[in-house]
């Protein structure tokens, strides 16, 4: 069942000549985990803002087409009604802290205070969000005293506490160090696993390949590809166009040209690459041993069955 429907959306920011988004058509089913990839300037953030209602309500400009979430249309509702449909988190965790609250617990309650949720319900929802994002032990700390990864999880929790129907995340790990990235991805994966509809803009394709249901490639404001991770992430269209392709895919493509990769499909993840290259090495090894030439074993690889 489609929970998000974007129909023929074209958008131009005020005072600009060319549209940031052109003829975007996209559907997301409830519970789907969709990843969006693309070079900087492709319109990924603009698309996030459009899904979250900030286009057109915050940024003004010219929007044509419709954006529907759970049957409601974004241009027909106010921004404040819309944020209850779509939660938005972005790159810099520091800028997502309200600055008005002293502890993480209160920071999470900030959104609920704004929309008039009664006190008891507030507490329950905040505690729920803290647990979901694994930061219950940080509840009494000042949001400003936390590490990047912790702050980003606070930002996520602050949005989750509003109980949106769809979660839109714009490069939440770009500013994180490896530990922070791991923490944030852990939370996203958990959310997706619990059936939340997630739309994630990311550069780290290896992770997307493992956990996303679908990948959309965006460039120059248009959708180039929309399909399963293996289809999209190994497509030759992405090579040299500014997309962050997995190094496993690139090296396998080169190896394929040299006859060193035998499978039809190119790998995106480490495991797929190991499997494919081991196979190629095994085939070559058995070929050579058939011809009677036994090269020194590479050792540790798979034994021919």
């Amino acid at each position, binding site marked *: 069942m489609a929970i998000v429907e974007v129909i023929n959306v074209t958008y131009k920011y005020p005072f600009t000549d060319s549209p940031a988004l052109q003829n975007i058509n996209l559907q997301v089913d409830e519970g789907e985990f969709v990843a969006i990839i693309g*070079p*900087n*300037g492709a319109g990924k953030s603009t698309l996030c803002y459009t899904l979250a209602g900030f286009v057109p309500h915050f940024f003004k400009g010219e929007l044509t087409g419709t954006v529907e979430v759970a049957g409601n249309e974004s241009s027909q509702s106010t921004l404040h009604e819309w944020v209850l449909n779509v939660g938005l988190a972005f*790159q810099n965790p520091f800028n997502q802290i309200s600055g008005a609250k002293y502890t993480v617990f209160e920071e999470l309650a900030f959104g609920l205070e704004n929309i008039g949720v009664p006190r008891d319900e507030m507490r329950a929802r905040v505690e729920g969000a803290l647990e979901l994002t694994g930061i219950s032990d940080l509840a009494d700390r000042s949001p400003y005293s936390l*590490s*990047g990864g912790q702050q980003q999880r606070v930002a996520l929790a602050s949005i989750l506490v509003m109980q949106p129907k769809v979660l839109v995340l714009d*490069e939440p790990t*770009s*500013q994180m*160090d*490896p*530990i922070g990235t791991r923490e944030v991805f852990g939370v996203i994966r958990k959310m997706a696993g619990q059936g939340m509809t997630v739309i994630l803009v990311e*550069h780290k394709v*290896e992770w997307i390949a493992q956990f996303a249901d679908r990948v959309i490639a965006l460039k120059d404001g248009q959708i180039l590809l929309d399909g399963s991770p293996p289809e999209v992430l190994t497509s030759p269209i992405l090579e040299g166009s*500014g*997309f*962050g*392709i*997995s*190094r*496993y895919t*690139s*090296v396998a493509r*080169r*190896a394929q040209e*040299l006859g*060193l990769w035998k499978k039809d499909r190119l790998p995106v993840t*480490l495991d797929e*690459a*190991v499997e494919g*290259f*081991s196979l190629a*090495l095994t085939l070559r090894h058995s070929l050579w041993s058939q011809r009677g030439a036994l*090269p020194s074993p*590479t*050792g*540790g*690889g798979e034994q021919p069955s």
Partner: protein
Amino acid sequence: MNIEIRDLHFTYPAGVQALHGISLNIASGEQVAIIGQNGAGKTTLVKHLNGLLPPTRGQVLVGDWDTTKHSVAKLAARVGYVFQNPDEQLFSKNVGVEVAFGPRNLGFTGEQVHSLVKDALAMTELSDKTETNPYDLSPTWRKMVALASVIAMDTPIVIFDEPTTGQDVMNITRIAHVIKALRERGKTVMTITHDIDFCAENFERVIAMAQGKVLLDGKTNEVLGQDEILATTYVEPPQLTRLGKRLGFKDVVRNQEEFLAALKK
């Protein structure tokens, strides 16, 4: 220009000891990456090189200069430092003027400044944006302006602080090109980075730090092959290195060329 770090200790005014006796030499023209988790002391170390921080104990020599004997502004003639957030240094009315700021401060003549700026803009693909206001550019291009501003200073040593954070593939490629160009000119290039693939593909020497000490220091292939030690500081080896290891390659590979060569064997 060599860098000599002799038994460097540093404690922040608040009392935290960030560096516990670091001794290193970096020869002229070397390309060095410093890796390690947040809090390991990487930025603290590197800020000693241009005098932003003075040693609590020990000595730092840049060429024949002791860093405590020269102001940061004077050391800027020898050490260029590219900070992480370009917005925290851009202020001029257009890119050309912005990039000229550094060389002007260093006392180059008008003609020299002009040619240094032209050169730096060409290296960072900004030649067509000379008259644009930096804040009219996207964050991607503002990053390039920040880079150009330091390159134009023509310092023998250039330091990059987390240059690839938040950048897309195309910008990372541009940054890699800049580093290559600097290498070809014989500059010493140092970087602090979390991006282990970027590190593996562009730097010859890797220093891994943890808790204010040097954990590993050597050629890239050697250091990145030491998974167990790196794991203690939450650094995962580069993608192709991991692949090579899983496939049982004898040698540690760090980029596509090395991988394919090892594969062919």
